């Protein structure tokens, strides 16, 4: 398998391989993003950034669960004006596409942040319309097809770079939401963000997270995410970026066969470190060779044949 066989075209972005860093993981600084690229990632997505600085929630912000993690960070970020410096710094040292994750409390805010991100050098923006633990943004936007369409078309009308939309699994019909995003102009769909969850300490009878509710990530949510990708692939033509519990090359392939053109990895970095990207890419490459495929593009959505 030559390196070209792993190359992916994603809504106009060219990725040397289909693996990407998921938003929310590291992703503050150029140095940490670079360590992820050195680990083999084909693209990186920053932490979500908004118009104004946000401190996030008090600790505990993370709880370990069986086969996953529950987090409620609360979107801590320095605000786009400050973060623009980090985007410029990252752009200068990274040799892969840099996607800036954006959130807002209105369509105008999403558009304003996206514009500044693109001005600072973002190759694309990913709209966080799926954070499950901050009120009046994130999933509260992504769960409503009408409001979502308004946000997406506002951003599309403001920036001339690809716009990805990251969806929440905490909806009745994720494919319907994806369809509404694509009709409004989304260039790609990222599925999925975390699954709304919580943990309670039995000794004190108290919820552990300071925000009480958080989002579950990690291997526990992989089957849910694969199903979401499969559902979305049936309904929309835009490329899908699969995300949710990917830890191994086998997991990555499952998402691609369900219909993902690329995949994102986050929580697995806690266990395997940034080198997880290289091991996933190697595994995909060996699989393609063994099965006689010339390009990774040939396997996208193969599970829909039957």
């Amino acid at each position: 398998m030559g390196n070209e066989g792993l190359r992916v075209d994603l809504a106009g972005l060219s990725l040397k391989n289909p693996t990407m860093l998921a938003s929310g993981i590291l992703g503050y600084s150029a140095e940490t993003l670079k360590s992820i690229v050195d680990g083999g990632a084909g693209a990186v997505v920053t932490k979500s950034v908004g118009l104004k600085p946000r401190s996030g929630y008090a600790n505990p912000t993370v709880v370990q669960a069986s086969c996953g993690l529950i987090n409620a960070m609360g979107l801590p970020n320095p605000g786009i004006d400050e973060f623009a410096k980090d985007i410029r710094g990252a752009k200068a040292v990274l040799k892969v596409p840099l996607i800036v994750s954006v959130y807002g409390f209105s369509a105008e805010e999403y558009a304003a942040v996206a514009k500044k991100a693109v001005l600072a050098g973002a190759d694309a923006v990913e709209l966080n319309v799926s954070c499950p633990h901050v009120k009046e943004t994130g999933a509260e936007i992504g769960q409503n097809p009408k409001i979502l369409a308004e946000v997406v078309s506002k951003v599309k009308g403001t920036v001339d770079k690809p716009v990805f939309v990251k969806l929440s699994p905490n909806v009745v019909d994720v494919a319907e939401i994806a369809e509404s995003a694509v009709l409004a102009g989304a260039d790609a769909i990222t599925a999925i963000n975390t699954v709304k969850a919580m943990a309670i300490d039995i000794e004190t009878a108290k919820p552990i997270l300071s925000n009480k509710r958080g989002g579950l990530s990690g291997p526990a949510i992989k089957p849910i995410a694969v199903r979401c990708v499969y559902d979305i692939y049936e309904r929309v033509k835009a490329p899908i970026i699969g995300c949710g519990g990917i830890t191994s090359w086998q997991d990555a392939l499952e998402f691609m066969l369900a219909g993902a053109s690329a995949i994102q990895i986050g929580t697995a970095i806690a266990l395997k470190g940034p080198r997880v990207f290289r091991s996933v890419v190697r595994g995909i490459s060996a699989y393609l060779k063994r099965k006689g495929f010339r390009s990774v593009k040939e396997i996208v959505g193969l599970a829909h044949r039957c």
Partner: protein
Amino acid sequence: MEAVSPTVKAFTFKDKRCAKAKPGQFLMLWIPGVDEIPLSILDVDRERATVSVAVKRVGDATSALHNMKAGDHIGVRGPFGNTFTLKKGKVLLVGGGVGIAPLTFLARELATKTAPKIFVVLGAKTREELIFLDRLKKLCGEENVLAATEDGSYGVKALASTLAESVMAREKFDAIYTCGPEPMTRAVLDCAEKFGVYAEASLERLMRCAIGLCGSCVLGCYRVCRDGPIFNIDQLKTVKSEFGVWKRDFDGKRIPV
């Protein structure tokens, strides 16, 4: 629970995992309904499966902890992070304030494992805040433990880093270990570089996940919770514009150390 100084208390609790911790590692301690904070490990008792931490009263979480009674419930995650490496020969420990705590654990491990000759320089604002002085004298020999206080109430009236520099100028060490306020650890590392001595420092940053994911604690390309909290002199040379200069606040903004 034991008062160590007017502002520092040591807490001991049962936790099988943390009881296996090594010097330099930390744990995340949850005070239900208040906060979860990172704490360096002060000591472990593997047989009794207990772990101890030294906590200085500085904010809401530490005050709440100081007000707790024996038998109250807390949550513990850990141990996290890497460890000090145990060297042989002749070593110097430089601790400031509550940063002395993890160095006492290190001193005990060094004494029982690689058995180097251990010199100690301690620093604090006042005599009362020079914690674990007697414990370290017993472990390392009274004559090898020097102290500096900012008000001159014990030892020399100086900063610990200044006293450490004078010790480094007259003795040749195989390794220096330091933990305390970052201006101090930075100064100690600069001295170590000047004298060409291997050194390790224990660093602190805002911690949230403690498992290397959230990025709250990054220092250059390092995640303090996962790649640290112990960093050696060669690693710290690569982050000179940041180490001892600035850190990230809750919103990720850069603020002075």
